């Protein structure tokens, strides 16, 4: 460190950029050499070569330093250390409320320890992640300057502390070793400066023609700053055009809003006020639905049978967690949903003809009885007419302002994205485009197939095609220039959540590869390449802030993570009179095969394809990992003889793709559902070649549903489902591991769940009973326990990714999942029941039960798993020799074994990502859920230092913290006042496999559903029989 110190002594903190230029150049050259070596290997062999390159001395050194040699001395960015120093200093200055001081942009050696910076203690910074343009407010845990975990921001109403899989997993996206690391020109590594020089001349040419040939393509944008910048850009190049495209667009939502109101409005739901909810193909409990964290919270809050329960009806074409959680589910093909909506509107008195059905009558009656406290939610994939009908019904029943709120749009400039991309393609085809800037979009991969985007862009003759993004992906391949993006954890930005409030995105770490933020790139397009993202953001908000003391306001805003008072106010809009006109081809012929397109539940539109956590995350319904088989219904499978894992050719409008099928319970007949986002060719070592690319058969005029022809192929394809097809729907569950009943049943006999199985007496044991409340045995008096509310759990998997991230759980890869070696410490089991064509299902998160009589402990020959005085079933990794006997004897099968060296010990990025509080397990060692013992320990140390007991709620396990429905509660069961004790005292609390006398500390609250008595007898025979079984 000494040379660095002396070099920087003369660097006055007040001045910027006073470093010795010569030494900078010398180092930059070194850097360039290393980078060149990396980049020179680009091409198809790129990543394999990177691994080889990782063995070279230069690369190792580069990674050892975390930044390329010289990067930490650069001036146009601040180093991690510098960043930490300044962030720490700001904390010191502003105490608890400040982590907001503007980072000084010079490098000061880290000679004094900032006051609040304690090695080993994490710090938390408020920020946000974005998905499809919508921001999620988060808190990011930072260990010594390395972000290690993403959690929800409890202060923000869109999160309330919860987060979703996408927010959690974006951490791994940042550390993705396959990210693009440099700007690239025609396959050659270039510097940002070189890029700026080139773009300057090019843009000067455009300026002369007022941007005639300049096109900007972005994804959906909610960032006010970026939108403002783009507006300024368009002012500078008045004839330029801004296109937006994201494959999972919300065009139909927008069109529905235009149809109903003649203007674009955002629809928000107030589910806490809704007694009756009807979803028309809307999977509003799944994390890709904007606002789902809050919706799930509000929905789950009304699932308590001791309070007023809500009731959910779902009419859907693709089985979803929302659908199987519903009290009543109607399985229709996508094209038939509109007919249902019209009938419902008619039976509610909105005009038109009602097709009569039992289900429809029941819903209509329920709605009439709950006018003003019910809500209809239309799905993003449903036609604009369905949205308009939903608006009309909500208005008719007086729900607007109560359960439905209309506001301004969250996206800065909502457009019909399909049309927007079509226009761009047209311009490209007509060779009107000279400069094409693609900002964080991947149209070559995900544009509708009929637009032939790849050919068009190649033959467009555009003199400059620029791709900006995290990966050198399929689109980057066809562009002359590629600029590596900074991840949202590396750069300043902002974005709006589903309610319109603005979150400030602050960087947690200096860009790993010196990537640029979108703000900086757009600024460069305007010739302002010297502006930093921070300057741009701050100056924008300086203009917006209403406070006279901007500095204080800004600090508070950045600290809180969001701009107070920016949530959109409710907007008074009235739907146009009358129902939307019937389109001719609304309902398809019953005999044709209807195909529905959906984003993948885990890897979204393909942007998470290189994220191992997401690839290995079992999808909520099928528990499928690493692949996207097409779903068919049991009836269709029975008729055609197709089996899961059979390959078929799917032919849509002259284009065809081969894809395996999966029989999904609850899927309608004569329909097939395909998932987008897989089959990526160029994304990285994880995602390349996984699954099947269904964009290849998606067309721009029918993005969500069309008709298809299915031809079976005489081949099969191995799929990796973590819960076998037979077991997911098994009829032979001899013991009710899932317990549920109807509300009426619960009222009659609240402890129905406990009576399903006999619980042995405490004294029926040869061994002395341990008394965990005995102070001689358990000195501190804590006895940790957990409850999981099955009624609240919606199977969103947030807990699984949170656990992955918190506990450094390795990703094992598809072949290992196929043989049954996935490593999830907590899993979410799905149990279907009832009719296979229209089942209900329960989701059961299963962490370690922390049995008081743990069968695993008894059988370990070396005492590697032992009990703590606080009742935890501890795993001593160092002592484990790997006999696997404990796992064999675990009735819950929650133990996970490192059959091979699953953990990546080599990749430097992953070393930075890991939680330093949790050991990295090597091969041959058993591991399992610890109740986040590291968090318990931190709380215990804190409490002992402060000479107090650990407060209830002070410890949150990672799964509990992430859970949007508050289904998981953790605490001290010795304290009768703790939340977990109160839940365990409830009548519907039961232990899984209690009859084995394992005395699990993790217990479940039985699911109670609130069926409509009008429909109950017909549909819930399955549920009743399950109850009777006990």
């Amino acid at each position, binding site marked *: 460190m000494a040379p660095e110190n002396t070099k920087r002594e003369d660097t006055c903190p007040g001045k910027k950029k006073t470093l010795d230029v010569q030494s900078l150049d010398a180092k930059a050259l070194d850097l360039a050499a290393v980078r060149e070596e990396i980049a020179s290997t680009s091409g198809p062999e790129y990543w394999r070569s990177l691994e080889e390159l990782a063995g070279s001395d230069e690369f190792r050194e580069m990674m050892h330093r975390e930044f390329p040699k010289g990067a930490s001395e650069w001036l146009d960015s601040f180093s991690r250390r510098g960043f930490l120093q300044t962030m720490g200093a700001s904390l010191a200055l502003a105490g608890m409320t400040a982590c907001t001081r503007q980072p000084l942009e010079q490098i000061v050696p880290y000679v004094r320890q900032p006051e609040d910076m304690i090695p080993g203690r994490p710090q938390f910074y408020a920020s946000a992640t974005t998905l499809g343009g919508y921001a999620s407010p988060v808190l990011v845990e930072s260990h010594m300057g390395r972000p290690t975990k993403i959690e929800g921001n409890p202060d923000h109403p869109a999160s309330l502390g919860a987060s979703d899989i996408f927010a959690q997993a974006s951490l791994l996206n940042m550390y993705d070793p396959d990210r693009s690391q440099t700007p690239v020109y025609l396959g050659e590594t270039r510097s940002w400066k070189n890029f700026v020089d080139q773009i300057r001349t090019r843009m000067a040419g455009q300026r002369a023609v007022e941007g005639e040939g300049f096109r900007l393509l972005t994804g959906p944008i909610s960032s006010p700053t970026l939108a403002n910048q783009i507006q300024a850009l368009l002012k500078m190049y008045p004839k330029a055009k801004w296109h937006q495209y994201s494959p999972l667009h919300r065009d139909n939502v927008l069109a529905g809003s235009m149809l109903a109101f003649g203007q674009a409005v955002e629809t928000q739901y107030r589910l806490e006020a809704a007694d009756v909810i009807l979803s028309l193909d809307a999977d509003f409990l799944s994390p890709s639905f904007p606002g789902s964290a809050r919706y799930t919270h509000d929905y789950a809050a009304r699932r308590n049978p001791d309070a007023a329960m809500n009731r959910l009806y779902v009419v859907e074409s693709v089985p979803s967690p929302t659908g199987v959680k519903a009290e009543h589910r109607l399985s229709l093909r996508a094209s038939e949903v509109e007919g249902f909506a019209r009938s419902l509107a008619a039976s509610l008195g909105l005009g038109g003809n009602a097709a009569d059905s039992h289900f429809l009558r029941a819903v209509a009656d329920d709605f009439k009885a709950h006018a003003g406290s019910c809500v209809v939610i239309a799905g993003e994939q449903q036609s604009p007419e369905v949205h308009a009908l939903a608006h009309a019904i909500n208005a008719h029943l007086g729900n607007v302002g109560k359960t439905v709120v209309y506001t301004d749009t969250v996206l800065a400039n909502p457009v019909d994205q399909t049309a927007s991309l079509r226009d761009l393609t047209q311009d490209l085809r007509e060779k009107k485009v000279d400069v094409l800037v693609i900002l964080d979009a991947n149209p070559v991969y995900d544009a509708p197939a009929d637009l032939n985007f790849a050919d068009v862009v190649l033959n467009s003759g555009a003199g400059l095609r620029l791709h900006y993004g995290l990966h050198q992906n399929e689109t980057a391949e066809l562009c002359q220039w590629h600029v590596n993006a900074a991840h949202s954890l590396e750069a300043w930005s902002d974005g709006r959540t589903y309610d319109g409030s603005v979150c400030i995105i602050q960087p947690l770490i200096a860009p790993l590869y010196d990537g640029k933020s979108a703000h900086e790139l757009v600024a460069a397009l305007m010739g302002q390449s010297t502006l930093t993202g921070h300057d741009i953001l701050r100056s924008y908000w300086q203009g917006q802030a209403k406070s006279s003391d901007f500095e204080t306001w800004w600090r508070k805003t950045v600290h809180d993570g969001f701009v107070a008072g920016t949530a959109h106010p409710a907007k008074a809009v009235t739907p146009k009179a009358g129902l939307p006109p019937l389109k001719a081809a609304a309902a398809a012929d019953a005999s044709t095969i209807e195909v529905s397109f959906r984003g993948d539940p885990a890897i979204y539109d393909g942007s998470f394809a290189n994220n191992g956590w997401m690839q290995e995350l079992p999808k909520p319904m099928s528990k499928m990992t690493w692949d996207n088989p097409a779903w068919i219904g049991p009836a269709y499978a029975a008729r055609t003889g197709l089996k899961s894992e059979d390959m078929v050719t799917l032919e849509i409008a002259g284009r065809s793709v081969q894809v395996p099928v999966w029989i999904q319970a609850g899927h309608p007949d004569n329909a097939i559902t395909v998932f987008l986002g897989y089959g990526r060719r160029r994304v990285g070592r994880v995602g390349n070649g996984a699954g099947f690319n269904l964009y290849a058969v998606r067309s721009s005029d029918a993005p969500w549903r069309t008709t298809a022809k299915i031809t079976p192929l005489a081949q099969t394809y191995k799929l990796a489902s973590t819960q076998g097809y037979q077991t997911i729907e098994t009829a032979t569950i001899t013991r009710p591991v899932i317990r549920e009943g109807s509300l009426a049943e619960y009222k009659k006999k609240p402890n129905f769940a406990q009576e399903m199985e006999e619980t042995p007496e405490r004294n029926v044991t040869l061994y002395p009973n341990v008394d965990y409340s005995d102070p001689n045995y358990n000195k501190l008096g804590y006895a940790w326990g957990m409850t999981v509310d099955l009624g609240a759990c919606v199977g969103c998997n947030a807990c699984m990714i949170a656990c992955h991230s918190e506990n450094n759980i390795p990703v094992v890869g598809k072949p290992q999942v196929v043989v049954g070696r996935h490593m999830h410490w907590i899993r979410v089991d799905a149990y279907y029941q009832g009719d296979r064509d229209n089942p209900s299902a329960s989701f059961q998160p299963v962490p370690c039960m922390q049995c008081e009589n743990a069968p695993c402990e008894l059988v370990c020959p*070396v005492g590697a798993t032992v009990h703590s005085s606080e009742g935890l079933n501890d795993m001593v990794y160092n002592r484990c020799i790997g006999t696997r006997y404990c796992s064999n004897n675990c009735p819950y099968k929650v133990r996970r074994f490192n059959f091979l060296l699953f953990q990546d010990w080599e990749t430097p990025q992953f070393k930075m990502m890991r939680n330093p509080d949790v050991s990295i397990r090597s091969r041959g060692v058993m591991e399992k859920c610890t109740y986040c013992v590291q968090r318990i320990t931190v709380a215990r140390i804190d409490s002992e230092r402060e000479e107090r007991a650990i407060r209830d709620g002070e410890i949150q396990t990672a799964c509990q913290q992430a859970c949007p429905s508050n289904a998981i509660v953790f605490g001290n069961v010795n304290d009768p006042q703790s939340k977990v004790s109160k839940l365990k005292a409830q009548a519907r609390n039961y232990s899984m496999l209690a009859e084995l006398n394992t005395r699990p500390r993790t217990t479940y609250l039985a699911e109670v559903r609130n069926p409509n008595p009008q429909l109950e007898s017909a549909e819930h025979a399955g549920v009743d029989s399950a109850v009777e079984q006990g």
Partner: protein
Amino acid sequence: MSTDPTIALAEEDREIPVLEPGHDMASVTAKISDIVLERPLSIAWVAGVMFCSGIVLMLGTAVTYLFFKGTGIWGINIPVGWGFAIVNFVWWIGIGHAGTLISAILHLLRQSWRNSINRFAEAMTLFAVMCAGLFPLIHTGRPWLAYWMFPIPNTMSYWPQFRSPLLWDVFAVSTYGTISLVFWYTGLIPDLATLRDRASNKYIRLIYGALAMGWRGEARHWERYESAYLLLAGLSTPLVLSVHTVVSFDFAISIMPGWHTTVFPPYFVAGAIYSGFAMVLILVIPVRAVYNLRDMITEKHLDIAAKVMLATGLIVAYGYILEIYMAWYAGPKSIDWFTVHNRFFGPYAGPYWMLWVCNIITPQVLWIKSIRRSPVLLFLISLVVLGGMWLERFVIIILSLHRDFVPSSWGMYYPTKWDWMTYIGTLGLFTTMIFLFCRVLPMISIFEIRMLLPESHVKHAAESHAPAAQLEGKHL
């Protein structure tokens, strides 16, 4: 009726003696020791050793790769945490049981027909225990730390967890291995001295001389030998019952359906003897043909071994039926009934019903005397029984684990090529040892065969000559 065990045979068996007539002290000694000392090295033997040690090399490859990569090269997973390794372990340990039974229990019961096959059976025991002992070591995730299962005083503060049946296994198997070795070696000493005395080559004489530990055949030696041998037989006898009982505790102590069964200890012991006798027959039948030992290992021996198999096979069948009965008794909603149902109709129904065919149905032909005395058929039936006993362990381990309490965690187990290589590799190791044993040590106890000769029984000369003469007459 005579009390001499040599001829104290049931009426029907009297026609075949345990030692064919025509031998005297010298011919017995010469015949057995010449196999070691005089018989020229045959091409077939060399080829056999080379083939089998080739398989040992394969075992070496499989184990080396295992240590290099980890147990993930096998087909095990969660929920099936134990696969071929433990199946093979239990199988091999079971095979070993026949040796101890023959040498110890039958010795105590003065069943002198055992004299012809006890050496062979003991060697088999030892080699089988070696093969078995390999598996618990290599099946651990971190085999270099497997020594932590032993209570070795150390500075690392580890100490075994004595409630674990795996630890009991460690003691049971190591005790068994040690006692078997000592027992076998003690029994070898007089014969080693014989070889020393008969060897013409100086170096061979030196080697056997060292191994014979100065045996001179004095009366004092014999007196001490007899008491030591008797004591060791007494020590080994409980081991015959205890070792496989402890092995069965690995399963019976757990709470898994299909494992948690009190019938396991007796049924495991019976099964062990069952497979052990099958293995004895598989080895003895070709050996007596190749080395022309039909006069010392007679059809009488085959007949007795077949009867033991039939008896123990029926005990095993009782165990199977009892398991089904207990599950039925527990009720149709019990997990035990589900486990049985899953065995009957689940994805592994094939191996389960094969087990019935191999272990229960096929051996019923042993009720027929002519089959019991047909070496070829017995050899085939023994192969079937050994396969059946292997399947039994497969059924117990894999079928119980693959579907247990929580349906979401059900899985399947498919062995990989490494599983097969390791299994077949231990077969190679076993046969290599048997090949070497046949060439370098007297495979039949010389002095004990001599004790079967009429001239060894001076006291009973008058009685014993009568049937011998009868048989002799018939033979002529």
